[in-house]
């Protein structure tokens, strides 16, 4: 189906999120939508899929103007959207999820639907058991389920919003093969939204680059990478040079530590984390790196062994004891665990800073906020509620809450979902902390990020933990093999 957008405008308050977007996507092609966070990509896709309404402009499907008033309406017109986080019901079976949203029949015929599910899955070479429960699936499989569901509902346009953020490299490869070889060739129109240049380049037939709510350029295969980067950011940027490995004193010392989680156990970890170093934790999601990070912060109590922080035994102490000794944990779920929706930026600084006296000094909060907004380049004001900031700015705000003095920062996915400019900015701020003597341990699913910024790398594979690898002597391929379970001495 041919999709045409004409002069779309959308305002959020004073923010002109989409400014006069005109885009034509021919049937059976893969259209890449590239741009940094907050460029207006997701807003446009939400308009196309009926989640929000444009303030002005027209949508044409196969040259006929249509009004799309809801997601259900969109799917009736043949537009299906695959969201960044799969919109499914984890505690229900695959088949129940599959049938949800189907408009007809009070009493669905399960055997017929099962057969149709299996046919469809076979056609796309997906292997998902319709009777299993969604919470037992990987994120990649949940995406596959969502694709199957949208196709079954009659989608002829498939919108994928940042689909590669949460999935592994092999799952990504599989997804791309499906999109190119199974769907596009059958006339399915695919709109692929991402801030990852590499992914968009591999997949797309043509690319539209968004910046600050406008389409700043379009390109067709073959693509010129430098030109795309320049369109995205208006300038060329590259990460700074890496630093030499430090030989400082030990900050955190794990002595024979064992950690148990509902699903896995990590046994007998011995590790010394030194001041000023960066340790990257690699592994498929849920391989034990999350539990490890929580054990380093006191959020999880080890079942055996000792944890020493600056030569003090803190085994079994709470996170607040760790925090008092300069440990900070920054969670991946920013709005769910890290920040307090409903409170302003200034109030966050008041909460995080050392508090003098009983009464709040609002003036001090505002000054603090203004100072941090400036030095962390946060787009927001002291009185902005934290949830009104974009994802990248929330992450910067989270980092700006770190207190002094710091000895250890533990971060889950410091730059997930952020654009290159934010990534570089965030890492430059983190590296500053290292220079001041803090150690950083972080989890990332981006192997290049791990190799780029770490001094040492630990790989996790189903609760097993590799020896620390020297990041400067390790390649992405080596890491990928270890993550996938190859090359482990049993």
């Amino acid at each position, binding site marked *: 189906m041919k999709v045409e957008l004409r002069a779309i405008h959308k305002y959020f308050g004073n923010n002109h999120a989409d400014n006069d977007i005109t885009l034509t996507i021919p049937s059976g092609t893969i259209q890449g939508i590239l741009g940094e966070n907050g460029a207006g990509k997701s807003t446009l896709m939400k308009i196309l899929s009926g989640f929000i309404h444009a303030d002005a402009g027209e949508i044409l499907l196969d040259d006929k103007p249509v009004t799309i008033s809801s997601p259900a309406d969109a799917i009736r017109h043949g537009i299906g959207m695959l969201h960044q986080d799969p919109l499914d019901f984890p505690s229900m079976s695959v088949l129940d999820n599959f049938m949800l949203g189907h408009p007809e029949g009070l009493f669905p015929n399960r055997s017929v639907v099962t057969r149709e599910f299996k046919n469809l899955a076979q056609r796309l070479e997906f292997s998902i058991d319709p009777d299993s429960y969604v919470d037992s699936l990987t994120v990649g499989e949940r995406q596959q389920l969502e694709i199957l569901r949208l196709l079954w509902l009659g989608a002829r346009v498939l919108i994928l919003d940042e689909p590669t953020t949460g999935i592994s490299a092999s799952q990504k490869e599989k997804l791309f093969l499906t999109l190119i070889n199974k769907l596009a060739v059958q006339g399915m129109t695919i709109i692929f939204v991402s801030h990852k240049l590499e992914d968009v380049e591999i997949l797309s037939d043509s690319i539209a680059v968004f910046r600050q709510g406008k389409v700043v350029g379009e390109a067709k295969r073959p693509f010129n990478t430098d030109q795309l980067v320049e369109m995205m950011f208006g300038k060329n940027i590259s990460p700074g040079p890496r630093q030499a490995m430090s030989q400082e004193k030990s900050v955190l010392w794990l002595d024979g530590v064992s950690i148990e989680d509902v699903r896995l156990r990590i046994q007998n970890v011995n590790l010394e984390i030194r001041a000023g170093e960066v340790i990257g934790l690699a592994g498929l999601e849920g391989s034990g790196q999350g539990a490890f990070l929580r054990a380093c912060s006191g959020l999880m109590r080890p079942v055996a062994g000792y944890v020493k922080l600056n030569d003090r035994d803190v085994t079994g102490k709470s996170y607040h004891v760790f925090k008092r000794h300069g440990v900070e944990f920054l969670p991946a779920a920013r709005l769910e665990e890290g920040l*307090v929706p409903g409170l302003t930026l200034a109030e966050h600084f008041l909460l995080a800073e050392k508090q003098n006296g009983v009464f709040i000094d609002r003036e001090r909060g505002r000054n603090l906020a203004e100072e941090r907004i400036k030095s962390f380049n946060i787009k927001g004001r002291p009185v902005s509620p934290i949830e009104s900031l974009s994802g990248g700015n929330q992450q910067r705000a989270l980092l700006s809450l770190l207190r002094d003095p710091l000895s250890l920062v533990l971060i889950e996915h410091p730059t997930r979902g952020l654009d290159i400019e934010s990534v570089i900015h965030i890492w430059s701020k983190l590296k500053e902390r290292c220079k001041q003597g803090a150690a950083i341990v972080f989890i990332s699913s981006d192997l290049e990020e791990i190799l780029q910024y770490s001094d040492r790398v630990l790989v996790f594979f189903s609760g097993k933990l590799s020896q620390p690898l020297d990041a400067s002597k390790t390649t992405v391929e080596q890491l990928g093999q270890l993550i996938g379970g190859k090359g482990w001495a049993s």
Partner: protein
Amino acid sequence: MKAMITKNSRWVNFGFQIAALLLALLFTTLILVAAGAPPLEAYKNIIIGSVGSFKKFSDVLVSWVPLLLVSAGLLVTFAAGLWNIGVEGQITLGAIGTTWALRELQDTSLPPSLIIFLAIIAGMAGGALWAMLAGALKTFGGVNEIFGGLGLNFVATALTIYLIFGPWKRPGVASMSGTVPFDAALHLSLFPGLRLSPWALVIAIVAIVFVFFLLQGTYFGLRLKAVGKNLRAAYLLGVPTWQYIMLSCLICGALAGVAGAMQVTAVYYRLIPAISSGYGYLGLMVAMLVNYQAIWAAPVALFFAALNIGSIQLPIVLKLDSSLSGVLQGMLVLFVLIVEGIRQRLSKRS
């Protein structure tokens, strides 16, 4: 154009609130008409019954005192994200604590004013204990505070009945009219000729001012709000979360306990079965209606108290049940919430 909207938004909000009030009145009127009662006559009686005379208005203030105390306490637990339904039981336990202290001390040689003071402290302790029980059930037992509080309300009622008909029964025959009234020396002094105690009035006003500053101006209030809005993030930001939840229970329970103590020392002078008089549930409505902002709690509680007192006339004059005030109060809360929902939808769309 955008700037104009933000400038006018306060007036727009105010307009929505007025609309909610009018809708609540309209629906109550419809109910009155359906019941075959003259609506205007009913409203007139409510107004005359509440502010028709100085004495009537002082009765409104008598009812305002416990309502304001309870609402002030509930603002604290709401800030911590708790639905403290158990506040009814906390008032009751406050009354029981006060009655207990008065009974224990009435025959001693302590000066009466000291006895009353100690009795009020005992009431605070009783309310706080009951609230912290609900809080402990939540933090250590994983029992939702709504269920825990509701259960404790029943226990508190049962305990009151047990005391009135058991250990604290009147000599001779126990009765629903309560325990033996205390000696006049142990009553809080009243304004001459009125049923209103200046002491009670001052305590209630101090309580709401205290809560206002606690929530607006202190680190404690800010941290409490952080706990209420996002428990996990508050913990990671260094707030000792369960301690704050327990502290908020303690404050709310203590204030509810004072309300119970006022009922004993300034209104009934004894323990009666329905000592909490529904002020807990009414306080929940006030807290919801003011959208958890302490500054509005005083006028709204006054309005609710006026409705309560005004409707006392209705059965006598119009043969209507006095629960009409409850209908109007409930309607008001519902419509304010509905209108607020509509306003948010509209502002999102524009």
